[in-house]
């Protein structure tokens, strides 16, 4: 999902003189937020509470739900079989996030520091795949990587290989698919954060005798931590619950938590157990979110405000 909504800095001074009296006060406008509030309550909060409630119920016959308090779903989640799936998904999410970060950082840095024209072109080139339908991107990747895909076709034609490379229907396929798919999610927030960065600070550090490594580890990385954080969350949260990529590129051999939830909901129709798994997924995602947020805010407390006060006139918003 989108976005990198960057924080904009308000630079307008508040008026100090008394405000003109309006014939009809605009107080009433705040009630226009009411339909939105009701919508969120009705289609977001209540359904989520129901999932939470279901996770404490018992499964009846033929996919029905018995309204009896029961904690066995959570006990089941902790069984080695299921715990292994959860941990495997966690590992998938972690390494996808890590590799995306490593690959995206140099690109985002380059984008942030080139001239405005190149910047805009590169930005458009990154945003387009970001918006292209996820299924279509995976489909296109399968056309390239598949057993009779373009890579294998070329390698066999040129007699480099005698047998096709197995690039899909295994863990490698899942890994490539995850990185290919989530890469733009990492670049955009990183770019937004690196673009706002005040690069005179880097020059100042050089002037004060810092070497390149010191400038990178002590100035550049800490200052871009918020962007790294946003990017990591944009990659980590969806990839933790991912089930389409393992399904289409992993040959559904290995089970991830997303596949497990989908199967329990749509195939075995064990809604209480599926709800317990979902609750666990949300809990773990939020825990990761809070943990990293805590670390980031602790690390950037000192540098954050230096950066924010510089160049308030630079306000950009990117989709």
């Amino acid at each position, binding site marked *: *999902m*989108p976005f990198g*909504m960057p924080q*904009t800095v308000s630079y307008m001074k508040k*008026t100090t003189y008394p405000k*003109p009296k*309006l*014939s009809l006060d*605009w107080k009433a*406008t*705040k*009630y*226009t*937020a009411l339909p*939105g509030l009701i919508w*969120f309550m009705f*289609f*977001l909060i209540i*359904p*989520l509470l*129901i*999932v939470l409630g279901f996770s404490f119920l018992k499964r009846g016959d033929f996919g029905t739900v018995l309204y009896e308090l029961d904690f066995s779903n959570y006990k089941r989640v902790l069984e080695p079989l299921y715990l292994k799936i959860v941990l495997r998904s966690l590992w998938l999410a972690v390494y996808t996030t890590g590799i995306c970060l490593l690959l995206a950082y140099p*690109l985002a840095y*380059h984008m942030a520091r080139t001239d405005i024209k190149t910047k805009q072109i590169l930005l*458009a*080139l990154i945003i*387009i795949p970001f*918006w*292209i*339908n*996820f*299924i*279509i991107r995976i*489909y*296109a*990747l399968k*056309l*390239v990587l598949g057993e009779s895909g373009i890579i294998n076709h070329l390698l066999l034609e040129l007699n480099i290989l005698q047998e096709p490379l197995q690039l899909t229907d295994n863990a490698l396929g899942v890994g490539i698919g995850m990185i*290919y798919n989530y890469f733009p999610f990492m670049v955009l927030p990183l770019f937004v954060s690196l673009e706002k960065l005040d690069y005179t600070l880097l*020059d100042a550090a*050089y*002037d004060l005798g810092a070497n390149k490594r010191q400038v990178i580890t002590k100035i550049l990385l800490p200052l871009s931590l918020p962007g790294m954080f946003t990017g990591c969350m944009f990659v980590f949260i969806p990839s933790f*619950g991912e089930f389409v990529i393992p*399904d*289409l590129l992993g040959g559904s051999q290995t089970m991830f938590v*997303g596949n497990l939830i*989908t199967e329990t*909901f*749509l195939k075995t129709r064990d809604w209480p157990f599926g*709800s317990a798994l*979902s609750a666990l*997924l*949300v809990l773990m*995602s939020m825990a990761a*979110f809070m943990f990293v947020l805590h670390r980031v805010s602790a690390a950037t407390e000192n540098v954050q405000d230096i950066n924010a006060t510089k160049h308030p006139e630079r*306000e*950009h*918003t*990117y*989709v």
Partner: protein
Amino acid sequence: MRQSTLSVNIHMFDLKKIYTAVILLLLYFPLFALAVLSFRGGPTPFYWYQKAFSQPQLMLVLKNSIIIAFWTMIFSTVLGTLTAIGLYKKNTKAPVWFESLIHLPLVLPEIVMGLALLIWFVFLNITLGKLSVVLAHTTFSVSYVILILRARFKNMDPLQEEAAADLGATPWKTFWYVTFPFLLPAIVSGALLSFTLSFDDFLITFFTAGVGSDTLPVQIYSMMRFGITPEMNAISVIVLLFTIIAVLMLFRLRSEKI
């Protein structure tokens, strides 16, 4: 620019360019491959396109996708605009809990949102169909519309409205002649965004769509599980082109407004 940084930049220059080019190549190669393959293998270049357009199932899901995206766009733009006006007019800050509520669909794993809505619709006895998909899509699109408008409100000069009021405009007139035109680019990009989000969505649709209300991504997904057909290449390329056009339009809107 100091000597030291300058030398680093010159030194790194080519490497950076090569790296960027390689990444972009990897990112775009599958898409180009898809486009090229869609023209090959048939008697005429557009053979598979004609074939795709004569398949009733593909046309049905394409129609479903457009109808669902259209109504999602209407609902979420209206709802999102009203909410944003209520929250951010007068340069006020929204309460923290409301802000968290807006961000919730963005941080919630999509799969959880999809199945939560599935349970809720079954619970409410809403038949799973186009309506349920529109309701589900609106729930996450509204957040994006609100966030875009929030950014717009932050750039608004409150003096403009005050000047209008000083010159004798009623609050209603101030809104229509000053506030609304100022918000309009953001409203349009919010609408475009919610259309694209809805058109692109797979996971939430997968959970909340019933028989006969599948959208294009869901259809391609289920077809892919049985194998790849050339018609799918053609229809994918069409969707791809639409997305590129939409993104370029959004880009123009957003660069003009600054």
